[in-house]
């Protein structure tokens, strides 16, 4: 059951990218969420007008703290408010958690391949965090595609979590860090073949990002031999 609306009060914000930030809310009554789930966020204006959108949850624990990470859509109604206007102490409403498909649970035993584009990394971050917190020993790989180094969400945390159980591959599509060994470019089938778990290793695969990115990556993965039913996707934006 999704149940009632909960009041969320902002306790911290952090600028993540030039157009995005993460926000931690205190949500009394929140009973936790699985890694990869999302939540409906409702804003109310003084005259009663309301606007609701769904956001992936970056946190995955059983506390009453919920972290979102939001990228600002230029024509958006809700995301510019969340990224530019919301301050510590401000309140919004939450309903959820939502979605039972694009989720990772610590009892899963397959290797996990995460592939994120831009802010599509948010539900994947939740999985990386849940994996680290659970003590699960299944290997994780994350391939994270961003336009340029400044566009990465949670970059420092990802670097800190890298280790024997988490391999992170960065792909820069427009501008690389200084001294990067390869030129900027989009994710190709060759990169996927080199940097991700092979189909023969039977990984659970999660792909999240803009529609064009997810279409391209998922098509390459099927061409590389992955059974389509093992490739879970979440897309945003149109085509």
């Amino acid at each position, binding site marked *: *059951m*999704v149940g009632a*609306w909960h*009041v969320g009060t902002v306790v911290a914000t952090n600028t993540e990218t030039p157009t995005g930030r993460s926000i931690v809310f205190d949500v009394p009554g929140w009973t936790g969420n699985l890694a990869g789930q999302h939540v409906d966020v*409702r*804003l*109310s*204006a*003084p*005259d*009663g*007008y*309301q*606007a*609701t*959108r*769904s956001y992936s949850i970056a946190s995955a624990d059983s506390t009453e703290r919920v972290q979102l990470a939001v990228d600002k859509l230029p024509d958006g*109604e809700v995301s510019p*408010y969340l990224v530019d*206007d*919301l*301050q510590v102490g*401000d*309140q*919004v*409403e939450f309903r959820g958690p*939502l*979605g*039972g*498909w*694009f989720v990772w649970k610590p009892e899963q035993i397959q290797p996990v391949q995460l592939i994120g584009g831009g802010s599509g990394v948010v539900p994947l971050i939740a999985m990386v965090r849940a994996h680290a917190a659970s003590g699960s020993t299944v290997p994780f790989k994350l391939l994270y595609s961003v336009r340029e180094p400044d566009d990465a969400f949670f970059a420092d945390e990802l670097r800190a979590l890298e280790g024997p159980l988490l391999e992170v591959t960065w792909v820069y599509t427009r501008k690389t860090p200084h001294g990067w060994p390869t030129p900027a470019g989009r994710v190709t089938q060759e990169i996927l073949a080199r940097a991700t778990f092979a189909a023969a290793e039977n990984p659970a695969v999660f792909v999240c990002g803009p*529609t064009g990115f997810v*279409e391209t990556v*998922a*098509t390459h*993965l*099927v061409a590389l031999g992955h059974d*389509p*039913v093992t*490739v*879970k*996707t979440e*897309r*945003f*934006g*149109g*085509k």
Partner: protein
Amino acid sequence: MAIISRGFAGRSREHNPELPPGQYLTEDFPVLSAGPTPELDTAEWTFTVQTENGPTTWNWDELHGLGVEDVHTDIHCVTRWSKLGTSWRGVPLDAIFDKVETERDFVMQYSYGGYTTNVPLEDLLDGKAWVVSEFEGEPLDPEHGGPARLLVPHLYFWKSAKWIRGLIMQDSDEPGFWEQNGYNMYGDPWQEQRYW
């Protein structure tokens, strides 16, 4: 009593009577799919209705030979976007069920790629649903369910299965893919039947 989000002004207050509660208008056509987009060839495509009397199967040409019509309608996605005045072309389910005998009242739509979604039979009849293969005068894009998807526009759009492969008639209303993953059994946008 809703709380106020300090400093939130929002956009238009103009009430659009064509927009169900909690929806916003989009000019875009967002893509939502749970997995990779399947590659399908109309030369090998078939559509099957499975009843208590056995299956009836049509190939691409046979199905379209039942008669194609233009559909102008609004569509509403549970993720809160709506598009008004979209144009489609396809075969009405009435023409398909004219060829099928069944006493069963519930339908499971199933797709190439494995997607399923449930709907009562009465929601597919009397000009309420189509197997569509064109959108805005063009062949339906694979990302949007091409070569053919179901169109059941009076329900949230997850009830309009992309890459439709057939229908299974059932005695009871069983949950499909999203219905097993937290979404409503019926999905009426005017009642905001989004989740469990």
